[in-house]
């Protein structure tokens, strides 16, 4: 290894290129089990994404009737029967934890299930490929058309124009659906088509149209290989038991042609099932050869399994020369032992336990959360006021939160210094000693609350005060504590 390095080899300008040149991939169409699963999941994913904003959910008059809505101006998030306020953003944190661990779990069970079937990059690229195939033909035709140096004919030009127009329409619909999650969908659609919608909606549609068009139409597998961190992380999360799309080289090697294999088999020799037909390579959306073993570029979409199965059926050999498998089983088969599959193991149990624990905790807190809340902030300047008769008064800013869908009538009580009197600025005319406040539904109400301790009960240091608020109609209560301070 101690070869002298010529300095020339170290420079980049006269040495090799700094990055690999882009090799355009022309995946061939394929049919089979995994292709059908992919079509099905694609329909579900896109269906949910495009049509969810139009699902209605009745929350009563005055509240938005969209089932899933991110209402930024009013800072509310609606998800069917759930309504979240900005301070409840930790539910999203929990959701992200569950999502991340679910990704780990998928990975330890079946490899890059997310990448191959569910990732938006995969789903939209698949749609774009389908459009491309429909208009320009399958792999061979597309390669031929791209390589052709003949001057373009009208037919070819119209193909290109049609393809990009459909791509742009899909991309535009993708961007359009995105903004519908942030506003009442039917209203916004009407505004969009009559050019009455706010500029920001058009800007976002434009941005997402551009990103969809570029990522699914041009960058495709480059996103997975060069931009996405998950392939790198995935490699660290996998283990020897995880099932990955694998070329079963124990069965496939040595590769021979169909004819030769038949001859050799007739002579009773050991030959591999792989006939080197390159169908697995032709259908691969990332343009790799799965027979080279696990690779970072492989998104494990399973299309090579379908391609190989079709060939194996034709030549009368058993299916699944490529299949979900792992090295342990390949070695076991080579040693003549039966393969073992271990889906339940420490890693998957721990991941599942985390999902159940975090998910359960979230459901529990969501189900038991209070829809009435109170926050109290002591006046800072002045912290205490001496009145002319020597009594001491403290002022507090009280914020009442009513997260429910109806107005509440609230009574406030304070518990602190002996014989305290309480006064709510602006609400004293009704019930001076036990102020009653109306908080509108789904709103907060800020009050200025004055607590006075008579001169003979002046505390000489700070003592705690508890503020109780109670919905006098329903009996729901909330409490906050603060201090009563002497000057």
């Amino acid at each position, binding site marked *: 290894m101690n070869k002298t390095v010529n300095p020339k080899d170290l420079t980049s300008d006269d040495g090799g290129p700094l990055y690999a040149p882009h090799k355009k991939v022309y995946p061939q169409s394929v049919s089979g089990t995994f292709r059908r699963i992919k079509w099905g999941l694609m329909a579900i994913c896109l269906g949910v994404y495009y049509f969810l904003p139009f699902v209605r959910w009745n929350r009563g008059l005055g509240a938005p009737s969209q089932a899933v809505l991110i209402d930024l101006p009013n800072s509310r998030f609606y998800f069917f029967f759930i309504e979240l306020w900005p301070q409840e953003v930790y539910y999203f944190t929990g959701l992200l934890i569950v999502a991340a661990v679910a990704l780990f779990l998928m990975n330890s069970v079946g490899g890059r299930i997310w990448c191959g079937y569910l990732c938006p990059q995969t789903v939209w690229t698949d749609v774009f490929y389908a459009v491309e195939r429909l208009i320009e033909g399958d792999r061979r035709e597309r390669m031929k058309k791209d390589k052709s140096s003949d001057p373009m004919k009208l037919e070819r030009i119209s193909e290109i124009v049609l393809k990009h127009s459909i791509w742009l329409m899909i991309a535009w619909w993708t961007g359009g659906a995105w903004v519908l999650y942030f506003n009442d969908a039917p209203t916004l659609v009407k505004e969009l088509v009559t050019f009455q919608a706010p500029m920001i909606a058009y800007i976002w549609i434009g941005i997402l149209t551009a990103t969809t068009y570029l990522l699914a139409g041009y960058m495709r597998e480059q996103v997975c290989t060069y931009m996405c961190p998950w392939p790198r992380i995935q490699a660290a999360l996998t283990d020897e038991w995880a099932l990955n799309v694998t070329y079963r080289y124990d069965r496939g090697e040595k590769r021979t042609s169909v004819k030769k294999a038949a001859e050799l088999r007739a002579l009773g020799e050991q030959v591999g099932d792989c006939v080197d037909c390159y169908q697995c390579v032709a259908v691969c959306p990332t343009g790799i050869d799965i027979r080279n073993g696990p690779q970072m570029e492989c998104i494990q979409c399973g299309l090579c399994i379908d391609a190989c199965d079709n060939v194996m059926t034709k030549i009368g050999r058993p299916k699944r020369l490529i299949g979900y498998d792992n090295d342990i089983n390949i070695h076991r088969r080579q040693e003549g032992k039966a393969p073992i599959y271990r889906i339940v193991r420490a890693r998957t149990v721990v991941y599942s336990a985390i999902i159940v624990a975090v998910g359960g905790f979230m459901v529990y807190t969501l189900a038991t959360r209070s829809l009435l809340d109170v926050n109290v902030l002591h006046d800072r300047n*002045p912290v205490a006021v001496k009145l*002319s008769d020597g009594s001491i*008064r403290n002022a507090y800013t009280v914020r009442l939160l009513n997260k429910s869908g109806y107005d509440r009538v609230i009574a406030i009580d304070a518990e602190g210094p002996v014989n305290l009197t309480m006064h709510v*600025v602006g609400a004293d005319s009704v019930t001076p000693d036990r102020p009653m406040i109306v908080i509108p539904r789904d709103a907060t109400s800020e009050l200025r609350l004055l607590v006075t301790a008579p001169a003979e009960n002046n505390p000489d240091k700070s003592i705690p005060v508890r503020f109780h608020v109670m919905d006098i109609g329903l009996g729901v209560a909330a409490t906050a504590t603060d201090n009563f301070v002497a000057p």
Partner: protein
Amino acid sequence: MTDHHSDIDSVSGKSTTGHEWDGIKELNTPLPRWWVITFYLTIVWAIGYWVVYPAWPLIASNTTGMFGYSSRADVAVELANLEKIRGGKMVALGAASLADIEKDPALLALARAKGKTVFGDNCAPCHGTGGAGAKGYPNLNDDDWLWGGTLDQIMQTIQFGARSGHAKTHEGQMLAFGKDGVLKGDEIVTVANYVRSLSGLSTRTGFDAAKGEKIFAENCVACHGDGGKGNQEMGAPNLTDKIWLYGSDEATLIETIGQGRAGVMPAWEGRLDPATIKAMAVYVHSLGGGK
């Protein structure tokens, strides 16, 4: 300097700049073309900027640019838009009576928000950000008012001030009984101790209460009233309560009686518009001490 074109580095095969330090020569590595083009483009861009935007200082002014852009005009437009947005609400505030504002939660919230901002800008330097006051500057949170603590009285004080020079200002001041020669030194000490006794504070040993009462009756009752209960018409404080604007210790009282007191509250009428003054009156009243 050597001609760097002919000076080729033997290892890399590149020409050098001819600069040499301790036997190490600097390679001549030209800037990338894209960098140079970008650099020239920024220069072109800068020239365009001079033409379009205000750029060069002149002796008394500056070049104004093609479209006469000014950030000050931008601010004016934004302020005008803000006024437009707020317009209706502030008009409603201006039209409502002070009592009605306190009863309407929406108007009260608006008045308190507006009042708090304006208070911070205009009143806080003397009265403190929360209206806690300081020596000579009344605490606006308590229930002791020199000129009255009802909404109307507070508004009047804000509008016209105290000893402000405004035609409708509150007048009346604490006279300088010592400086003007009305009372002698020992009489001032005596009456100061008498004033302390009115609110139950300790007095100096040997203090002659009867003499103090006599001096008080002859000199102070006219403004501070019988028993020192004060008079809001004249801004004369109640001397029997626990709140002291300048301080209740003997030395401060002697200074007050000897030198007089005449703090000034400016008139805000004309400086703030009527709706804003109203908002401020409601804000001060809602701090807690309002009557």
